[in-house]
């Protein structure tokens, strides 16, 4: 297939697929279980691996178990970003409804030990041109997952799948697809449902190496503010250097959770599925002096005002996402 010229439709599909390269597939994923001895033992028994490094008080996990700590299990991945679902839906729509995992590459940067809690981010690294294999014709999708423990890199897991139309089935162009009845339309409906469910979720936090510590803190119900170790200036948002003195050194202080509404907005339009307008968003000035954007909860949107004393609370949204929000301090609700 490589030596054939693609048709315009194929070209167009490839361009649309390529646009997903570099986009996040999972943001701020959290391993379902901490690294633990029972899973290690089961793995070693299944593999017949008797390496003594994997048992005893100083046991490490077999490096090749890396993927085991980030798998979603039968119930699927909670933290997947919309882009990955969209990419797969595009391929489904083009007739590439089958999937096979082809290979994976891993790099091990430090051993994992029982008790380690892994966090991870996955990006869509590449989408190949159209390829024909014995299984059928389709596209290779490669994702790269960076796995961390306590903010430090532990390893990289590169995973490749082939999404393909089984041999004997043609790739469909989109117009044909729309005219089909039966299974494909049902697939289409399922894809739309998936799209709607994704759309109803709040936008995910945007997490990278510079701010992962903040979101890690939120997950543990601690609101962490950076503090410059050279000049002691507190700063928010998180950045890898001090805007006051330029020093790169920092530690964190945990916010007391007390604050006041410094400004606010009441959102009316356009509507976003995850939110019910009108709703209030506050710019909260913390007692420590830094400001953070958050929701003001437990008070009608039209009772939010500048100067309202508020206090921190952590709330779970969409099952898997914890956010720091603020409620009026006791006795202040409908002032």
């Amino acid at each position, binding site marked *: 297939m490589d030596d054939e010229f693609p048709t315009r439709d194929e070209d167009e599909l490839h361009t649309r697929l390529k646009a997903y390269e570099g986009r996040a597939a999972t943001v701020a994923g959290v391993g379902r279980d901490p690294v633990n001895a029972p899973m290690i033992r089961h793995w070693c028994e299944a593999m017949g691996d008797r390496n003594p490094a994997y048992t005893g008080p100083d046991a490490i996990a077999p490096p090749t178990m890396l993927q085991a700590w980030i798998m979603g299990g039968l119930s699927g991945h909670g933290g997947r970003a919309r882009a990955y679902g969209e990419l797969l839906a595009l391929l489904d729509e083009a007739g590439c409804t089958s999937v096979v995992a082809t290979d994976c590459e891993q790099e091990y940067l430090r051993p994992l030990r029982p008790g380690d809690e892994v966090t991870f981010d996955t990006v869509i690294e590449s989408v190949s041109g159209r390829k024909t294999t014995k299984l059928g014709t389709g596209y290779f999708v490669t994702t790269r997952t960076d796995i961390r423990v306590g903010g430090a890199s532990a390893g990289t897991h590169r995973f490749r799948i082939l999404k393909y139309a089984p041999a004997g089935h043609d790739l469909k162009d989109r117009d044909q697809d729309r005219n089909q009845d039966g299974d494909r339309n049902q697939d289409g409906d399922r894809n739309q449902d998936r799209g709607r469910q994704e759309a109803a979720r709040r936008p995910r936090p*945007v997490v990278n190496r510079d701010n992962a510590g903040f979101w890690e803190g939120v997950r543990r119900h601690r609101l962490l503010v950076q503090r410059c170790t050279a000049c002691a200036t507190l700063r928010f948002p998180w950045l890898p250097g001090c805007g006051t003195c330029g020093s790169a050194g920092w530690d964190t202080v945990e916010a007391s959770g007390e604050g006041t509404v410094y400004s606010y907005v009441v959102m009316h339009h356009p509507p976003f599925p995850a939110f019910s307008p009108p709703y209030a968003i506050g710019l909260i000035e913390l007692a420590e002096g830094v400001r953070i954007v958050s929701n003001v909860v437990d008070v009608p949107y039209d009772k939010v005002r500048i100067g309202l004393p508020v206090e921190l609370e952590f709330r779970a949204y969409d099952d898997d996402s914890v956010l720091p929000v603020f409620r009026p301090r006791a006795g202040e609700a409908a002032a």
Partner: protein
Amino acid sequence: MSVRTRDSLGGRAAIVGIGATEFSKDSGRSELRLAAESVRAALADAGLTPADVDGLVTFTMDTSPEITVAQACGMGELSFFSRVHYGGGAACATVQQAALAVAAGVAEVVVCYRAFNERSGRRFGSGVRHREPSAEGTALGWTLPFGLLTPASWVAMTAQRYLYAYGLTPEDAFGPVAVTARRHAAANPAAYFHGRPITRADHAASRWIAEPLRLLDCCQETDGGQALVVTSVERARDLRQPPAVVTAAAQGAGRSQEQMTSFYRDDLTGLPEMSVVARQLWRGSGLAPADIDVGILYDHFTPFVLMQLEEFGFCAPGEAPAFVAEDRLPLNTHGGQLGEAYLHGMNGVAEAVRQLRGTSVNQVPGAARTLVTAGTGVPTSGLVLTADGAVEG
């Protein structure tokens, strides 16, 4: 202009051609074609041909690369091409880039352009739901999970604090800006809101978008293209149109600057980045607010027009609502982005040129000194454009 010392750019270059497509809600053609059409129109206006062009400047947000516009317009070799970042904050800086290139002899004729299907294609007002974990994406990411997702909402956060600081209502503070723009647009056949002025009551009755901003505080969304031709003042004097001399040009970013969410600094009642621009423009031009005949101040949302007037010193902090209500400065005479079109500020630069030529539909008699600004609430830029000879070099 440097932040600290006066530069030597003033009086070296001029805008000699302006060209635009129609402003619509659905252009029916590609963004590249809109760019090419506006570039050709601007060159024709200047009496130049694509073969004369050796430089192109646009926005980082533009989807039409300089090299592709050059091909589509029949240009030859280019010796200068450049892009400016931060959305609408780039508008006046494209002219600054062109003037720098011309003054340094890097290029002779530079065209600045911006073209998009912002209404029929990707609408900025529909908001952001996702950002990549780059430094830039992460900066915006602090607001997204909480539902602060649109440009209107980012502006509203600062606007609310402005109202609070000066004890103003949104109707009294923002209404005059909307009414003024729509009055000028009503007389402008090129404006989307041609023939449709509004009253203060219309403004006050319009629905909330992101409180304290109402529908009529928000600019429209537009499909279209706008181009500007820049060359040396010497060459400009031999061309068809009276030159609009770049007497001062400046960019500005403030301390603790964020792209649109600068919520973590100072008192949120002004636009510190525009203050950086203002100080440079006044020093570079030798002019003061009282010398300005027409102000073209970026108006994607009404509140930031007020803050700009205050940052430039046209009035004291908190007094801009009255300043606008009393029509003390001819303001956004094309109708602004609220009334004419949202062309990321480039149509405002064209209006300043028309005022200096004496061809605006809302002409200010004898207009010789104009101030133009670019996107607000973002790292931004500004220009003082003057008639040839109106300012001593």
